């Protein structure tokens, strides 16, 4: 992105913001009349006193929200690079499917669930939908266990000496 162009665009947006007063707003209860303010933009090639225009305001707001989206993406990439993160373009299921599963809690309990099941239910499904995730979605999970318990694929083949717990929290 060209910083000069962005600077010019922002200065324009800031300088062209105008305020209209609708003077004839009257409150029927108190019988008093107030001025009502209307904030927005108008294009400079229209006559100067034309006031706030719907079209110009809509264009400006579209521009500002696009700018916000681009900046959000740039900041994201910047932070990811600073801490050595990894970009994932698109969904790839192979390593998730390859990951061996494990029981959470006691394997003999009738309502035992598996690690991948819980993550699927609480994280993958809710966050793959558009919009905000619903109640029950987990923004975080704590994976913990004594040192040495968390070997890559233990629990499926033999009973581990110590369980690995998964605690899911909603925030």
């Amino acid at each position, binding site marked *: 992105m060209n910083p000069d162009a962005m600077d010019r665009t922002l200065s324009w947006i800031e300088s062209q913001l105008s305020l209209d007063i609708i003077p004839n707003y009257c409150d029927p209860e108190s019988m008093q009349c107030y001025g009502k303010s209307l904030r927005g933009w108008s294009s400079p090639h229209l006559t100067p006193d034309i006031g706030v225009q719907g079209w110009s305001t809509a264009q400006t707001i579209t521009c500002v929200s696009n700018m916000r989206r681009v900046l*959000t*993406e740039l*900041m*994201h990439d*910047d*932070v*990811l690079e*600073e*801490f*050595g*993160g*990894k*970009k*994932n*373009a*698109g*969904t*790839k*299921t*192979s*390593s*998730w499917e*390859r*990951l061996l599963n494990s029981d959470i809690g006691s394997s003999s309990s009738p309502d035992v669930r598996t*690690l991948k099941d819980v*993550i699927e239910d609480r*994280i*993958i499904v809710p*966050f*793959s939908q558009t919009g905000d995730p619903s109640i029950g979605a987990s923004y975080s999970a704590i*994976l*913990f*266990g004594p*040192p*040495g*318990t*968390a*070997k*890559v694929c233990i629990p499926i083949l033999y009973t581990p000496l110590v369980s690995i717990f998964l605690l899911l929290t909603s925030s």
Partner: protein
Amino acid sequence: MKYFFQTTICEALSERMGWDFLVIDTATFLADGLTNVAARIRYVFDRLLFLRKCVILFDEIEEFW
């Protein structure tokens, strides 16, 4: 091995969702030295708030508790 296990789950999860992936470990918090840990933690979290659609693994973080 522990590191590998947790990394495997979180990284596989991020790939499954198509989100980016990031590991924050004790070294990240100690980058400015022991005396500046509090300020560094504040800085790191301020920066992390800019991330969107990202799986973040806080690894071995119990060492700070």
